[in-house]
């Protein structure tokens, strides 16, 4: 007898779903609105850097709408917090493309961006992610992914290149790598190995430290035995501070360098004095750089309307702001008919696009979506990041 009622329930479910569909099937808004998607991590594992990034991107859209929009059209940023979970990102992506019919997406992590790249290419959705994985730079495979800053591989190469320039001893320097076992962590490893060999750097050790690790003693003891001259870390703030603190405790005197997600205001309170001397890759401007970076004045005028100042935001906010700015520049160049296709063409017209110093100048073309390959390096001195270089490359 169960069968009867089961069948009835199924009927109910179907009926209700159909009702739901008719209620909210068509996306809202007319043709004078440009819909953009946002897949951000606000509450997930990388939320500490993901939330300011998302805030920055949303702030830029608000700013540009207050300025009158893009080509006279308002921009509607439909953002989804996918909590750093790949399945949720995939579901969110389907909502954005199929339900909301966005013309471009601002994304976040390496794992989810790579998981979506085939769909992005098929659906013709320009995608600017906060992941700078080298895999995404392959334009044949990922014709709709755009990288708005130097890839992790390029960042590591510049770090090695810079270190070699400072190196004055009469032997090959010894390098060690520390990363985590995720697509993000492993992304630059293979390229770094190759580049180190090319440049005559001896790669003596590689250690895997978990993204959420609170202790890295055993890995660092192994690393200490190999006695590296410099170490390149690819982590986020949390694991980087663990590594730096344990290294200090063990008395490892190598130079520690980190790629862009290790760098930022959030690292300093976590590491305290253990962070002194750490050299980080800087892809985007710090808000405290003030007048030397003209692009910050735009952010400042936006923050004014919110009764805030540059002191209330951090570098990841600037990064989100810049990504949105680049995407909307592509939309502006797309002209009157805004589709995924035309936005891609618009983005491909960007040539040395000046972000006002918020990031390295960005160039896209039909042959390459590698926006930039230059970074700056900054060192923690007296609990503050101090710039060591201007934007530099490795060639």
């Amino acid at each position, binding site marked *: *007898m*169960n*069968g*009867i*009622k*089961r*069948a*009835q*329930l*199924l*009927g109910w*479910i*179907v009926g209700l*779903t*159909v009702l*739901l*569909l008719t209620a909210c*099937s068509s996306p809202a808004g007319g043709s004078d609105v440009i819909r953009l998607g946002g897949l951000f991590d*606000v*509450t997930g594992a990388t939320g500490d850097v993901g939330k300011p990034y998302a805030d920055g991107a949303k702030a830029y859209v608000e700013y540009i709408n207050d300025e009158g929009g893009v080509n006279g059209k308002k921009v509607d940023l439909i953002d*989804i*917090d996918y*909590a750093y*979970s*790949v*399945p*949720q990102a*995939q*579901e969110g992506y*389907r*909502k954005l493309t*199929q*339900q909301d019919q966005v013309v471009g997406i601002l994304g976040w992590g390496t*794992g989810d961006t*790579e*998981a*979506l*790249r*085939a*769909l992005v290419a*098929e659906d013709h959705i320009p995608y600017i992610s906060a992941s700078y994985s080298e*895999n995404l730079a392959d334009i044949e495979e990922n014709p709709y992914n755009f990288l708005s800053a130097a890839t992790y591989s390029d960042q590591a190469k510049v770090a090695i290149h810079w270190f070699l320039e400072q190196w004055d001893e009469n032997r090959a320097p010894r390098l060690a790598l520390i990363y985590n*076992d*995720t*697509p993000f*962590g*492993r992304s630059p490893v293979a390229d770094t190995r190759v580049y180190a060999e090319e440049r005559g750097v001896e790669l003596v050790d590689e250690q895997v430290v978990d993204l959420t690790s609170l202790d890295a003693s055993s890995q660092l003891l192994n690393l200490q035995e190999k006695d590296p001259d410099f170490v390149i870390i690819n982590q986020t703030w949390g694991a980087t501070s663990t590594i730096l603190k344990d290294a200090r405790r063990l008395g490892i005197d190598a130079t520690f360098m980190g790629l862009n997600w290790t760098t930022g205001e959030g690292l300093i309170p976590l590491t305290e004095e253990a962070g002194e001397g750490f050299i980080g890759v800087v892809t985007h401007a710090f808000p405290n750089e003030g007048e030397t970076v003209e692009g910050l004045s735009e952010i400042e005028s936006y923050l004014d309307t919110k009764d805030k100042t540059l002191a209330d935001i951090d570098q990841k906010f600037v990064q989100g702001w810049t990504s949105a700015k680049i995407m909307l520049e592509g939309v502006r160049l797309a002209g009157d008919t805004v589709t995924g296709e035309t936005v891609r063409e618009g983005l491909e017209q960007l040539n040395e696009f000046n972000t006002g110093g918020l990031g390295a100048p960005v160039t896209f073309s039909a042959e390459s979506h590698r926006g930039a390959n230059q970074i700056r390096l900054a060192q923690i001195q007296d609990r503050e990041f101090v710039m060591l270089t201007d934007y530099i490359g490795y060639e």
Partner: protein
Amino acid sequence: MRNPFAFQCGEFRVRYKDDLALYKVPRVRRRVLFVLGLFFLYPLLATPYYISLATMAAMAAIGAIGLNILTGYTGLISIGVGAFLGVGGYTSAIVTTHLGLPFWIAVPLAGLVTAFVGALFGVPSLRLKGLYLAMATLAAQVIILFVIVRWEGLTGGTAGMSLQRPDIFGYRLASERSYYYLVLVCLIGTALFTMNLFRTRVGRALVAIRDRDLAAEVMGINLFKYKIYAFAISSFFIGIAGALMGHYSRIIGPEHYDIEVSISYLAMILIGGLGSVIGAIFGAVFITLLPVVLRESLNLLTPILPHLAEHFSALRELVFGLMIILFLIYEPEGIVKMWRNLKDYLKLWPFSYSKK
């Protein structure tokens, strides 16, 4: 011949075949077919996004039915579902890309390979029960993911692998609608197989093991053999689900198969109802749609209460946990039992004299 003007009452079975039918009452049978028909009509009415939600729920349901065979019907707990989904997905990816075999061979093969791997990790189940077995299957989760990440030549390591949508007679199942039908057919097959399984000798042996393994052994049931069967059959469907998911999302990577996936599948069968096919489907739909419904209700609230919404989004994990706890306290038998209660209530309504 039956009098067409008289209302039929009672069930009349005149053939042994009638006794063996899955749904014995013709009216019920018709109703089931009608509902199935609605599911086939659904994609003609819905937008692609809603079809994709249904597809995801259906794929999860195949996996949840698989897990329910093991945990709900046989009483063997498994925390390795995530990794077994991965075995299915990766087998299909490797078979289609490295060997160039078609999807239609790769997916059953993925089921078989996962069944083998599952049976292998089921070996300790002869000696282990409950928490100990949970640890053993947790080990499966860790070992399998470790192999996937490290065996870069075969699996592509952390970068993952890409898969293609299947072709049938030269027609590519690239649209949401066509893939929905594929998954729906697979789900119906899985559900029919499982419902029938527990009417057979093997299925009854599994239920006997769950209810009291010692008694089952005394009755002559070879515990080891049947526990391995349970692991193999369960893993077969989980593998199929994994392969279907892989071909649906087009790219797979180790991050798709972590421990959280395993936990969400356990939550599906727990919330839906242990030891019930329809319960596994309810649970899969519930868990798949929960984050979507939360997000959408949040979006509705945002214009009215912007600050509440900001804080509420951080509570999503909490809602998930709360759901499980509330179900365990108030309805341990899951959604299926809630439905049964409702049905019992409605059966006599409005003249319900059967006070509890």
